[in-house]
Each structure stands twice: as C-alpha cells, then as structure tokens.
C-alpha cells in the first residue's frame, strides 16, 4: 500500500495504520453531522411550535414564497449531491479528470443555488416582506388562501418570515462553507493527491454536502409547501 506522497507520509504518527486513521476520520465526520442535526434542531422545534400556534399566518406567509424558485433550487441541490457522489467515485477509482470535473460541477451548482437564493431574497426585500419597521403584508389579499381568515394576524406572518430568513440564512451559510471546502478539494484533486488508497477527505466532504442537501429537503416543504394541496 502506498501511504506516502512525494516522500511525505499521510499516516499521522499517532495512528497504527491508514485503516485506523480513516475509520477515525469517518466516525468524526458522522459525529460532527450529529451536532449539526441538533444545531438545526433548535430551529425546527421553534418552527413546529409556532406553526401549530399560528397555522393561518404561516400558510399565508408560505404563499408569498415562489414555488418555482424553490423547486428549481431543490432540483439544483439534488443534482449537486449526485455530482458530489460522482466526485467521490472518481477519486476512489483513481480517475483524476473525472473527479475534478465532478467537483467543479458541484461547485457550479452550489453557486447557482446561491444565485437563485439571492433573487428570491431581493424580491422579498422589494415587497417589504422583511421583518422590521418596514414590514408590510396585505392581510385581505391573504384571506383568500387560508381557511379561517379571522385567525390571521400580521405579526404572526412576521414570525413566519423571521424563521424563513434565519433558517434559509443558516442553510445558506452551510452552502457557502461547502463551496469553500469543495474548492479546496478540487485544488488537491488536481494535484493528484487522491487515489484508490487515499480519498478520505473527498468522501467526508461528500457526507457533509449530502447533509446540507438533506437540510434543504426538509426546509423546502416546511417553508414553501405549507397548506397547498
């Protein structure tokens, strides 16, 4: 087994062999993802509580979001998970060009996701759907989409948007972080660092990226599809 690159050992001094090193890194990544689940968990609890309390307002708020853009972004992220998986496969099978191109495609898709997000957010800003003193929301217009308009309160719609911005914002930060590490993987892959014997970083970043994808898979129906049949 070649455990050196350019004379430099990839095996850290405190591990017995590469196998142990890899299994440690993999477990570490899974534990990190567990902490991430709990981190987002607090927000999901808040969302669930307020959605139960202020269902009408949340449905009304949800109707202000663009399903089209949400769907496009969902498709983009799912595709990027595929290209990421292909990148891992490429690194694992020692196909350098294939791995590099897949990582590049993942980067492009992640970028596209953020661009769509940018347009979504700026449209909201234009319509004064930003919590704050400027917040405006047409209650009579929303009355058409909810079952019990008399229960609708504008401040509760505001709460929906607060959660919307915080949750998609936190997810967006994770996408940006993902772009950072995938770009780093790409430069390493181009140098030919990864091979069938050593591709742990690609695999672990892949796990992270799938996690970011899964968070969105939960956010999308919760925020965009509320009360639509």
């Amino acid at each position: 087994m070649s455990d050196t690159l350019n004379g430099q050992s990839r095996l850290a001094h405190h591990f017995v062999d590469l196998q142990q090193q890899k299994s440690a890194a993999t477990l570490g990544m899974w534990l990190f993802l567990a902490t991430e689940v709990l981190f987002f968990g607090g927000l999901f609890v808040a969302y669930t509580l307020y959605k139960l309390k202020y269902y009408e307002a949340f449905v009304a708020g949800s109707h202000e979001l663009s399903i089209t853009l949400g769907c496009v972004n969902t498709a983009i992220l799912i595709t990027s998970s595929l290209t990421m998986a292909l990148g891992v496969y490429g690194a694992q099978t020692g196909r350098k060009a294939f791995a590099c191109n897949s990582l590049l495609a993942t980067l492009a898709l992640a970028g596209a996701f953020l661009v769509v997000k940018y347009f979504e957010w700026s449209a909201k800003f234009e319509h004064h759907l930003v919590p704050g003193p400027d917040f405006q929301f047409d209650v009579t217009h929303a009355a058409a989409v909810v079952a019990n308009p008399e229960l609708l309160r504008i401040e509760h719609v505001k709460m929906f948007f607060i959660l919307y911005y915080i949750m998609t914002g936190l997810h967006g930060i994770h996408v940006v972080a993902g772009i950072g590490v995938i770009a780093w993987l790409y430069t390493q892959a181009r140098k030919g660092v990864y091979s069938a014997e050593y591709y742990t970083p690609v695999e672990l970043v892949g796990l992270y990226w799938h996690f970011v994808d899964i968070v969105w898979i939960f956010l999308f129906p919760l925020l965009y599809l509320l009360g639509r049949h």
Partner: protein
Amino acid sequence: MTTDSAEPKYPEHTYLNDGYSLKSWLLTKDHKRIGILYLISITFFFALGGLFALLIRLELLTPQGDLMQSDTYNKMFTMHGIVMIFFFLVPSIPAVFGNFLVPIMIGARDLAFPRLNLASWYMYMAGAVFALYAIVSGGVDTGWTFYTPYSTAHADSHVISTAVGILIMGFSSIFTGLNFIVTIHRMRAPGMTWFRLPLFIWAHYATSLIMILGTPVLGITIALVGVERALGLGIFDPANGGDPLLFQHLFWFYSHPAVYIMILPAMGVISEVITCFARKVIFGYGFIATSSMLIAILGFFVWGHHMYVSSQSEYAGLIFSALSFLVAIPSAIKVFNWTATLYKGSITFEAPMLYVFGFIGVFTIGGLTGLFLAALGMDRHVHDTYFVVAHFHYIMVGGALMAYLAAMHFWWPKMTGKRYPEGLAMVGAIAVFVGFNMTFFPQFILGYLGMPRHYHEYVPEFQFLHIMSTAGASVLGVGYLIPGVCFLWSLIHGRNAGPNPWEAKGLEWTIPSPPPTHNFEEIPVVTEEPYQYTSEASSVRHS
C-alpha cells in the same frame, strides 16, 4: 508513601522538556501540553470567578445594600455564574485531565485529532476574550441564564459580546467531546476491551455524548438571542407571537445536561482515586460504567424541572418531575458502589482520598436536596431561593470542584514528575471541606426560610446565617490557596515522583512521570482487568 528509598530519577526526555519556546507550546499538538494550556487558562478564570464570589459574599454581610448598588450586584452574580460555569467548570476536568489522560489510559499516542484539540483551546481562548471584553467594558447583568425578554429587549449591558463568547466557547466543548468519542472508539490498545476501560474513560465517554448533543442547542439558542437583540428578528419576542418559555426550554435542554458535563467526569475521578487508596478492586465496575451512560441519557429528559413555575403545563411538570427522580437512581448506584469499595479495604488518607471522602458526603447532600427541588410542591416553596443556590453549589462546587482537586493531587506527580508536600495538602483538603460546608449549609436554611436569590438586600433576621456563610467562604478561599502553594512549592522543591508514586493500577502509571512526548515507546498490550489492587501492596507502600 515511600520515604526511605532513594529518590527516583527524573526522566531524560519528557513532554515538558521537548522544546521550551513559546511557539513549541502555542502550536503544540501534544494532548498533554494542551491539557497544561487549559490548566493555566481555567485557573485564571477560577480566580476571576472567585473574586466575583468574594464581592458577593462581602455585600451580603449586612442586610443593607452598602457595598454596591443593586445594578452592580446583578452584574456580580451574573459574571460569577458565567465565568465559573462556562469558563471553568464545563472545561475543567475534561479539558485538563481528560486531555492529559484519555489517550494514555487507553494506550494511545494522542487523541484522534490533535489539530482539532489545539483548535479547541484556541476557541476557548477566543470565547474568553469576548467574555473578558464584556466584563471589562461594564459587565453583563442578565443572570447566567440569559432569560428572555430581559436579555433581548431590556438589559442595558454587554449581552451580545458575552453571548458570542459563550457560542465560541461552546465549539471548544464540542471539539473536545468529539475527539474523546472517536479516540475511545478507534484508538484503544490491543486487549483494551470496552469493559477493561478505566471508569474515568467511561465517565468521559458519557460526558462527551452530552457535549456533542447538548452544546449545539445552546449554540443556536444563544445565537437566536444575539440575532433578536442585534437585528430585531425576534423569535422569542411576544410582539411577534414569540414565546419566552421556548427560550427556557431550549436553554435548559443544554443547561440541565451541562450539570452532568460537570459532575460525570468528577465521578470518573472518584472511581479512580477511591479504588487506589482503598487498595481494593472497584466494587460493581459494570454498574458504575452503565450508570454513567444512564445519567447522560436520562439527563436529556429532565430539563422541564426548571420551569415548574413559569407557565409550563402541570402535566408536563408531572412527567419532568418523575423523570428527574429517576436520575437519582444511577447517582445512588455510584455512591453505594464507592462505599462498598471501601468495605474491608486498606484505606489510607492522603490528600486525594480526603477530597474523595469530602465529595461523597457533599455530593450525597447535594443529590438528595435535588429531589426536594424535583418535587412539584416543594419546588414551589423553594423555587428561586437560596435553597436552589445551596443545592447546585453542593453539586458543582462541593462535588465537581472537590473531585477536580482530588484529580489535581492524584495526577500532579504524573503531570509534573514532582511530589507535593502531603501534610500541607491534607490541611488544604480539610479547610476546603470545612469552609465549603460552612459557606453553603446555612444557605439551605436561608432558602427554606424564604431568602430569595439575586437580592443584595435582605431582612435583618437573615443576617446571622449570612455572616456564617461569608465566614465559611473565607475559610474556603484559604483552602483553595493551599493546594496552589503546594503545587508551586513542589515544582521547585518537590521530590521526584517516579513512574508510580501511589502504586496505582492503570496504563498511565506504567510510563515515566512526566511522560515522554509520544507516551509509549511501544503500544502496550492489555492482558488484565482494571483495578487489580491487592491489600498487600499497601504494606509495601508504607514500609
């Protein structure tokens, strides 16, 4: 201990003389050096938190608010709590002794992720800088619990920088916990099976689970407070239909288990020390190990006992009450097993063992008064009184801190290669025990009589008990200084310890003191069960 034989030789190559430059310390990836970095940092914060405690006790000497204004007093107890909990107790045993001992005890050369370990210290320091900035620039007055809406809308102090500091410090805790779990799973020496692990390791495994599963929730909660305060995005703001009680739920989801972050490692220390100084195999190894895990798991389902009187439903209160009672079972299992370990042991009374005896007594009182508070009716009477203050100080100061001192004395010879003066250290242990009980036992009575917490003035009837408490605190303060004197003295004048001054079992005692940088020349092969003490060993020790 041996006094007759020649002084053991000090080893030639140790982790301490492997480079003397500042860089060799600040960029070290050696788990032992990182443990020492933590030791120095948390000692500073312990002194700072102690200073706030001193000012609080001085103010409470008299019924009038004469030393400081109520606003200042609010800041004093807030900063005392924040510094002691987040910057001393949460890191204390895991970050110092866990870092130093976890790899050695399982026969590994380092933690699984040495760079992450160093990063955890830097995160701790970065968090500390924010907290110190908040303290120096005028302080924070929300109480260590940051209850909304006071913390988000009304408090006029440095909430955001403190919150940022705690958020960052939280990451250091997560890094440490993650590192321990991976290390314990993946890096055990051949023959070191799960049920041969020292109980200190089991305790740290359980603690680490809480660190990685609880801390992120504190992180997001405290971040939401910051966002609400800074950007006006009010998740907890009643003006938007937000629920302040949601904050309490999220906060205590971490902060109740955080009590076990402080006490579980302490229990691990007790298990190690008691079996050594009783010269007996630990009684009920499996029960002690399992009870650590049970405490960690149950601890996640009791947080509602902090909200009996803040609009939580009675039925939720009932369930949380029952679950809180359940935690007493694994805690009692430990106390019974430690006591059974003593039975027919050849007990000696060196300083670490004195702290252990102190711990068991004090922890039992702290634990049992916890049951008073877990009961719905009783809690209504003593909620937010000094009874609560006394209870959690019995667990956190009497329990966690005494175990921390036991660990300091027990492993100090391993860490530094030097013996401390035993007689003086024993005086210190006794002073801590007496001072502690004098300080906090009167507070149970004060609370029961109705003295509320967080007040700088009180009715004159309470003065006698407050004077007793302050007098005790002075004894306690001196008690804390004595180990400091012992340890500093030992660095200059102490005898060389040799690899195993206590004739203790465990892999850390098979290597030189202080250990070499890579711990083991060859990875050991473990062939026996832990704690194979025999009573004959004591006769050798005392020859």
